[in-house]
């Protein structure tokens, strides 16, 4: 029973972090119509930045600033240089982001080495919840993820640029006719998507390992969340990420992690075939 509770809780917290990353994937998909194969590597860049920050300054807290900042700048550059010229050919964008993924993984391996590294969390106390020793950092990570999610939704719905982003997604041509600088919105969207994933990486770094292949495992999970939540449905994506990770956590308490992964993939195929608009269409709009 304790094990079940522990794994369910881990799943929930991991789900919140995944939600952050999947949200980036979902905005990029919804606005730019790109299947971003490199998105898992954006997460990996976040974990690497966290590791480098701790190495350089000894202060983990700086990483929560540095990761999204570097992610934002890299995202803006990548969109301007690579994505913008091929915007009208979605199939090509898959190849381009696959290329980006290789470049980022190899660059990370070149600079930081191939050996997975462990990072100590900035908060090392443990807490007793329901008779279980639990790391305080995980709870803190969950709080950070919730704060970032809430911040992003507020940004999207309460600021001018957020409204622009929603307008361009809704109807690009009308938005341009109304004077919204769509090109800038694209750059910003990609940058924010990268920043969200990189922030997720910094938050998750002490929970997982810092590895140049860290994004490879994350990517399918994020895609599952985006699909099950509904392509382009942001609240649905966040909810699906939490649901999926929670479900995998529960299944892992009595079966192999691979079985849990297979279960969520089967759920995803069912959603794609039966409700391609996502599980939450109609609720979360």
């Amino acid at each position, binding site marked *: 029973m304790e094990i079940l509770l522990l794994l369910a809780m881990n799943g929930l917290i991991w789900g919140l972090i995944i939600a952050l990353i999947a949200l980036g994937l979902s905005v990029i998909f919804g606005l730019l119509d790109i299947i971003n194969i490199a998105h898992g590597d954006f997460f990996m860049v976040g974990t690497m930045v966290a590791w480098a920050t701790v190495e350089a300054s000894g202060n983990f807290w700086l990483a929560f600033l540095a990761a999204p900042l570097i992610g934002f700048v890299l995202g803006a550059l990548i969109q301007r240089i690579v994505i913008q010229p091929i915007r009208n*050919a*979605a199939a090509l964008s*898959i*190849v*381009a982001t696959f*290329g980006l993924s290789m*470049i980022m993984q190899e660059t990370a*391996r070149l600079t930081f080495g191939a050996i997975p590294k462990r990072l100590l969390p900035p908060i090392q106390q443990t807490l007793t919840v329901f008779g279980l020793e639990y790391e305080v950092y995980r709870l803190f990570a969950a709080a950070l993820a919730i704060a970032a999610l809430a911040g992003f939704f507020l940004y999207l719905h309460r600021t001018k640029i957020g409204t622009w982003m929603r307008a361009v997604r809704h109807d690009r041509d009308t938005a341009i006719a109304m004077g919204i600088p769509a090109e800038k919105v694209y750059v910003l969207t990609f940058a924010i998507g990268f920043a969200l994933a990189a922030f997720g990486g910094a938050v998750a770094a002490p929970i997982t390992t810092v590895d140049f292949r860290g994004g490879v495992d994350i990517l399918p999970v994020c895609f599952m969340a985006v699909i099950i939540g509904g392509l382009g449905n942001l609240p649905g994506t966040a909810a699906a990420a939490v649901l999926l990770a929670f479900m995998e956590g529960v299944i892992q308490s009595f079966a192999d992690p691979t079985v849990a992964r297979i279960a969520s993939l089967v759920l995803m195929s069912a959603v794609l075939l039966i409700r391609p608009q996502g599980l939450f269409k109609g609720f979360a709009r």
Partner: protein
Amino acid sequence: MTRTAVDRGMFAAFAVLMLAVPWIVPELLGAFWVSVIAEILIWSLLAASVNLLFGYVGLLSFGQALYFGFGMYGVGIGIAHLGLSFWPAFGLGIVASMAMALVAGIFAVRLTWHYFAIITVVFSLIFYFLFLTIKPVTGGDDGINFTLPPTFRFGSTEIGLADSTFQYFFILFFVAACFWLMHRVIRSPLGKALMAIRDNDVRASLIGLNIYLLRLVAFVMAGFLAGVSGALFALFGRYSSASYMFYHVSGEAVVWAIVGGTGTLFGPFVGTGIFILVREVISTQWHHHLLIVGVIAILIVMFAPRGFVGLWHNLMDRLFSPRGSP
């Protein structure tokens, strides 16, 4: 000289070159490179299966590694666990991958575009994780090794893939046969129907084409190509491994096909050849050859979106189009 003459001449030269590989290449470069060329031949079939779906039907599959894996395991399990001889095991690999493609296709071709790309990768991931779990049968990531039974037996003399020249021609024969088959399909009414669906599926359905059935047929044919590729690779490497079913393998095949040029018969072969040569040449000196692979992929989609074969066609257009006309 006309343009067709140039194309024919190139093809004839290429065919002679491929037939002469086992005698020329060891002299010039070393015996190792014969097996590199064999590997290019094998993998080009996987890229061709992506090309058949994307270049001719307009469906981007990100899960062709699944059928490649079934081809591999059909051979591997057939030989190692079922004790089959050479040809039944080869057949089992191809049949298994086509059966899998049929089952997956029944669901997958109901979807198009993004959804199709995602459902194909999801199906391949399901079986990737499944094959990792059933280790006693599949060997998981480590795979299963086996010794090859002889290909032909005449009385007491046995001919098998242990003879590297025979192995090369065995692979060349099947790869060439598959490309010839694909050429025939593209030229046939079936191929025209598939291209009609690619260009406009609504119009295609209005002239009475059964879109669903045609897409399914194309999907199974692509499964066949990927299956032959996987079966050949298992015979070539004498092992089968679940790691070849991961989505990265599918993704590489997509990159090879698009960089070479989709919608052309030889594009996938060119793309596969370039990437495998880059890997083999550079990885001996530098461990980070994937960096260069990534850069090539990006540069090609930015500056030559129709791939290397597209570049070649542009060059030919410029050389042979009458002055003044575009």
